[in-house]
């Protein structure tokens, strides 16, 4: 497929509760196929809401969503989506292998044949020894990796991740980022990655979408023109720092605009 994997036009969303928070307002975003795009912004700016709309878990109140040329629900039905929520969301009574194999057992008609060898995927994610363990026996970082392997096992066209590494320590986080990149480069999926870490966004992304709260909106899209792989050396380079500083600046603007407006 060519063109945009994800196309958002004029998306608005107001949560139906007492606060009537405008979670999203006038969101336009086009994510070309195969790109790694991060969404960054202070908490409460609607990042998760946006992701849920792309995943077809929530309907926008205004605007149009297209995922792989169809509606999100159709994309879900055709098993073109892989979702990694903020918590690993594993089933405690299943082993690691059974957990990652479960999505292939539902909605079988639309499985992408041939199914990948899940043991092999787990092994490559460093979970070879944990195949028959249960989630309770794993560390937080390992659980998150299981959730990522589960999503990759679907061989999705679009991978949606909501702050998957935010609960991890700096060290584990770096290793996980590396593994995510390896899997992504191999499969060539389009990735929408929510984070609130500037470093993480610059390190991983082809472009970074900066959002601001109240109402949740996009204030900037920054393309990261850095070569891959992004080595430690590159991360310490002035170019990398320039991107970090630029993003930090944009985020501060977003905050201050909001402060003046309200």
């Amino acid at each position, binding site marked *: 497929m060519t063109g945009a994997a994800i196309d958002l036009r004029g998306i608005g969303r107001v949560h139906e509760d007492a606060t009537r928070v405008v979670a999203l307002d006038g969101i336009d975003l086009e994510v070309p196929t195969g790109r790694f795009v991060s969404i960054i912004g202070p908490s409460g700016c609607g990042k998760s809401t946006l992701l849920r709309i792309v995943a077809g878990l929530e309907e926008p109140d205004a605007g149009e969503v297209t995922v792989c040329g169809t509606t999100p629900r159709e994309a879900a039905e055709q*098993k073109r989506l892989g979702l990694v929520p903020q918590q690993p969301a594993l089933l405690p009574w299943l082993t690691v292998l059974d957990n990652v194999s479960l999505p292939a057992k539902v909605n079988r008609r639309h499985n992408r044949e041939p199914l990948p060898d899940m043991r092999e995927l787990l092994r490559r994610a460093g979970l070879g020894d944990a195949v028959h363990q249960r989630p309770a026996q794993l560390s937080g970082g390992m659980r998150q990796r299981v959730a990522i392997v589960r999503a990759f096992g679907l061989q999705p066209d679009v991978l949606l991740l909501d702050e998957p590494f935010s609960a991890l320590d700096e060290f584990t986080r770096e290793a996980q980022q590396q593994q995510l990149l390896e899997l992504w480069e191999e499969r060539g999926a389009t990735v929408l990655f929510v984070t609130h870490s500037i470093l993480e966004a610059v390190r991983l992304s082809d472009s970074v979408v900066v959002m601001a709260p109240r109402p949740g909106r996009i204030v900037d899209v920054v393309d990261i023109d850095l070569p891959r792989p992004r080595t430690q050396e590159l991360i310490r380079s002035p170019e990398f720092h320039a991107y970090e500083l630029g993003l930090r600046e944009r985020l501060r603007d977003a905050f201050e605009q909001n402060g003046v407006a309200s």
Partner: protein
Amino acid sequence: MKRVLHPAYWAPLAVLLVLLGVLWQVGADRMPYLLPPLPDVWSALTTDPGYFLHNSWVTLREALLGLLIGFVAAFALAILVSEVTLARRAVMPIAVVLNVTPLVAIAPALVVAFGFGSAPKLIITGLICFFPILINASVGLRSVPEPVLQVFQSVHASRWEVLRHLRIPGSLQYVFAALQIVFPLSVVGAVVAELSAAGSAAGLGSVIQVASSMNRLATVWAAIFVLALMGSLLLLLVTVVERRALRWHEPR
């Protein structure tokens, strides 16, 4: 399991049991009309073991059959109630009210309606088991965390698939908690029904009723001890099965 064999584990219980036995004997000496001497109870049990065995079996069968009926009905209704909001709003308030109604009180009415056969016993036992299972199972079926549901929604899992892969396995923990209550309770249900059916032919409840009308205290107490044993064994059975079924629950 080894731990259980260590004296530090069983000695306190043994000492207390001996103490209670002695107290019982002292009581029996002073008030022979209230407490039969323990040797009498023992001989009541052993002179006709077939009698107790037969009546125990009758009561146990009523209890387990009633429990099975109550379980199937309650679990089916729990699934309906957890899947259909309208059904939940209609059924749950009634279930809660019925739950606080002493079902023991309707036993005589059921005997009048259904006679001395096994029907009223199964109904009472089933009803007593019904509500703890309904309430726990319907909570358990709805206990699947939202993010897990979202992952399955994102691959377009059908309602049936969500039920089969997420909701039912996720409810087991809650269902077993109910079974812990309901297994011993099923014996209570069966005995109450037998006691209410004055002319019922068999079961430990009838044994108690007949023996107490004839002032045979030793037999009454023998039946009570058998009932206590039966309830305990049932509880032990659920606990063992639960350990095996929910092994994932305790990380090794």
